[in-house]
């Protein structure tokens, strides 16, 4: 491996997050006093700095320009493998992850104060976890994919367990950790089989190697194991069982982080693995390639997620199931990518942006509504919010409409773009999947509107006593505006994604 010091510059977003994360862990050790808001400030500053670094590096690159980092060249100077790839999509995603981290940090202090789990390590672990996501955004090697996923996941396990006195929290963390470890096994095994079939770990070189591989059986098995592993990470049906419990038990800001950032990062990893390494002419699963199992998974993920969400009375669980169905929509995009739709990648990235901002905003409001001793997680508990806090109710309505895919929100355009990419696929093979997705949109409207109905059409039994904090209110005010902006002016974002 050749070490080129310039490569470190391209990794600045990662380095900033990792260093700030470690600083935060250290700071906690020396920090006196009960309030950890100052640490939150440092975490926000660090993640924003990382986001700015991503923007700067993005601007250094032309469209389509890439730099392989931490490369291994053979004697003639040809690239044999690389660990990371600096490209525009990668920097868009790493900026997204950093911004999501900052937003999560902003909504955390209020929840910590209100529910009494003030710990400074929380911010450190969050930033370290985010550094794993940034690795995933750029990873082009099975090793870095693995590293990224693990760095990210271990941090999130810890964050889930942060509220030590909550029994549900402990249960959630345990479940999440065990299932996550299980998924890691699948991931490792899948990587090993693909390496066995292709003789390389570099995703940039794997596709031709696989195409000429003498062991198609290994490719099928390895690809399938990777589908399963990523299925666990993004909570696709039938690998979703952990998600509702973990989402419900984790502290609300962490739930937002899990649903938005962790899912987005796993999708970023899938983009590289399935788009690059297993894309094109590698046909390990019959005529549609790996898209054939994924088409089925996408269809059942959207449907089961939605139908189960209809039956939930707990807002957090409802959003958990809804996020499962959103993972299904993203998998539709992934299938379109596998079948060669030219716009699928930018559709997925756009959807990730719209979906994750919507999610963070929604969980910020869930966290805002609850107060000490009364978390108000049931839909019925939200009755009359519009009377007492019209701003929060309006914000939640806009975000829910975006979830449901109604114009003019980012969620609508995201769905439109993903389904359009799926329709692009030769001969309309995915038309039925689009129909399923669209039918599910109608179902989803029903349960999203249940919350709106409770907020607007019913009277409160008890006054709300939300925690007020500047950061939280900022997120609650900003996200709906951003979601509307995403829906009204998607052109700017599409140019950005490229």
């Amino acid at each position, binding site marked *: 491996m050749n070490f080129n010091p310039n490569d470190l510059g391209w990794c600045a977003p990662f380095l900033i997050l990792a260093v700030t994360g470690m600083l935060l862990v250290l700071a906690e050790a020396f920090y006196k006093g009960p309030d950890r808001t100052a640490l939150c400030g440092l975490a926000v500053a660090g993640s924003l700095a990382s986001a700015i670094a991503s923007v700067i590096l993005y601007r250094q690159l032309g469209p389509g320009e890439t730099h392989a980092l931490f490369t291994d060249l053979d004697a003639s100077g040809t690239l044999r493998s690389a660990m990371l790839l600096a490209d525009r999509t990668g920097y868009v995603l790493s900026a997204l992850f950093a911004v999501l981290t900052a937003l999560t940090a902003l909504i955390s202090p209020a929840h910590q104060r209100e529910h009494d789990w003030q710990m400074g390590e929380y911010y450190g672990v969050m930033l370290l976890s985010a550094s794993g996501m940034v690795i995933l955004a750029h990873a082009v090697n099975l090793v870095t994919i693995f590293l990224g996923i693990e760095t990210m996941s271990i941090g999130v396990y810890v964050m889930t367990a942060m509220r030590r006195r909550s029994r549900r929290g402990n249960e959630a963390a345990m479940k999440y950790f065990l299932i996550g470890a299980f998924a890691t096994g699948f991931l490792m095994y899948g990587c090993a089989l693909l390496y066995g079939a292709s003789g390389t770990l570099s995703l940039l070189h794997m596709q031709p190697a696989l195409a000429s591989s003498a062991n198609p059986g290994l490719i099928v098995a390895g690809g399938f194991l990777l589908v399963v592993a990523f299925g666990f990470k993004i909570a696709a049906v039938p690998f979703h069982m952990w998600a509702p419990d973990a989402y419900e038990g984790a502290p609300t800001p962490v739930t937002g982080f899990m649903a938005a950032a962790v899912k987005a990062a796993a999708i970023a990893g899938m983009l590289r693995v399935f788009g690059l390494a297993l894309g094109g002419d590698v046909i390990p699963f019959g005529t549609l390639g790996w898209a054939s199992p994924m088409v089925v998974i996408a269809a059942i993920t959207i449907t089961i997620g939605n139908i189960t969400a209809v039956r939930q009375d707990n807002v957090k669980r409802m959003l958990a199931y809804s996020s499962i169905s959103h993972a299904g929509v993203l998998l539709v995009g992934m299938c379109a990518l596998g079948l060669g739709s030219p716009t699928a990648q930018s559709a997925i990235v756009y959807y990730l942006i719209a979906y994750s901002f919507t999610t963070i905003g929604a969980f910020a409001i869930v966290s805002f509504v609850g107060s000490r001793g009364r978390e108000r997680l049931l839909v019925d508990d939200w009755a009359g919010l519009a009377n007492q806090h019209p701003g929060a109710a309006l914000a939640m309505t806009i975000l829910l409409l975006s979830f449901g895919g109604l114009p*003019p929100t980012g969620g*609508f355009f995201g769905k439109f773009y993903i389904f359009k990419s799926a329709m692009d696929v030769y001969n309309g093979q995915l038309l039925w999947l689009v129909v399923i997705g669209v039918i599910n*949109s109608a179902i989803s*409207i029903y349960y999203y509107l249940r919350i709106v*109905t409770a907020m*607007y059409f019913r009277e409160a039994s008890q006054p709300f006593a939300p925690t007020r904090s500047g950061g939280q209110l900022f997120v609650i005010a900003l996200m709906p505006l951003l979601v509307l902006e995403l829906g009204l002016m998607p052109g700017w974002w599409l140019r950005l994604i490229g």
Partner: protein
Amino acid sequence: MSPGGGFLLPLLIGLPLLGAIFIMCTPKTEQSLQRGLGIAFTTVTFLVSLTVFRYFNPKESGFQLVFDTEWIPGLGAHFKTGIDGISIYLVLLTTLLMPLTLLGTRASVERHAREFMAAMLVLEAGMLGAFVALDLFLFYTFWEVMLIPMYLLIGIWGGQRRLYASIKFVIYTMVGSLCMLVAIFYVYVKAGAVLGAYTTDLEKLTTVALPYHAQVWCFAAFALAFCIKIPMFPLHTWLPDAHVEAPTAGSVILAGVMLKFGIYGFLRFAMPLFPHGAEVWAPALAVLAVIGIIYGAFVAFAQDDVKKLVAYSSVSHMGFCLLGIVALTQMGVQGSIYAMLSHGLTTGGLFLGIGVLYERRHTRRLAEYGGIWKQMPIFAGLYLIIVMGSAGLPSLSGFVGEFFTIFGTFNAGDSFPANHAHFLPHPHLLGALACTGVILGAVYLLFMFQKTFFGPLDKAKNGRLPDLKAHELIVFIALALGIFGLGLFPRPLLTTMQPATDKFLHDYTKRIDEPDGPPHIYGSLPAAPPAGSAAPVAAAGGTP
């Protein structure tokens, strides 16, 4: 036509939106200020729409005042608006009904006046946008934007069963519109391949001929969305619930304007995009329209709740509009548009009248009224005009539309070359059955009027009902004048909408002769001459 004025339509959509934002910024307690602002903004919007009408050139058949700017570059979605002889009158109807509704129901909204006004203004922006949108993506956006304010209007300011009614309204409409969305995807992708660039521009999409079967399916998807909106029997069950639970203003706008989107959608989108689909489904739609006319009338007759009665009368009246367009004759189409305008004024008026009574008596049961003519003579007189207009009395507005649609149905097929397959089955029978709807309409409406205003004044509570207040008087006089105007002078309207309807029919007949094939631009496939007719055509066109 003066070339300027392109900014007028975006202004028309933007004004109510601006008003909504402005009103939301006023303090919560200033309810009368908010009501005043709502009326002011809708009135200004009406004035702008009159300016649009001044710029509108009635001799031209194509789209006018077109405003076109790229919206989403990668996808070919444009912010493209324009009007023609069909949409201009629907726009005017919307902008006229809005201030009248807000004025007429001024006192009835006691809670959250700020939110109420904002919802109404957003609703107006959505409706106007959907009427002038010439881009499928833009149209779909506005189509959905209309939904949420109406949902909130029913749910927040509605009656006892408002939760059920509001969610039923949304789910019904969403199912239809999502089916339409799938068809939009299909057209978008297929036409994009033919045109060489993806676009959602309606005028470009209508140049593409889709394969026969695709047209049939896509038309069915669009038709589902539009038939739910109309609402056509048997998809009408959301309407009585929504109407009964909605506040007066919501009912007026729902019946007066929103139902028209179903018919308008057929004229503007479904039929031009999928002519063969229209050909296949037209007989079914016609039969269901006639069933709706008769069924709606009978069910209306059986109602004790006045609002339900008027709701079912809408099912019946909108059946005429649907019948008129599927007949695909000039009279049918013009009559359909005319009936929509008339229905907007009369049904809007009927609901406003019910609102007036409800405010004074807090009941909608017919049995609770009787003998009110003596108490409220002015109201009774004006209401009689509205009822008669709705029942289709000659010289009032309803007559023209119903007469034209029925006449158009009788002649269905006349606008096509004789060898063409497009005929409604048994047009005379359909027309005759529709006629019974007119008679039944007179029966239930007069029955309602009689039970309310005539007879002995035997309920003590009806003894001291105050007559119309000044602001209500203005509203009802304006509506009555409109109904008289439409009934007595149909010619100016009919002649000004004629270029547009002629173009619609001309394009339709031209497109329907296109031979089936893979997606292509109209006229680009060499037409395979039918075996029998080849020789005469050649002889007729050849040199003497």
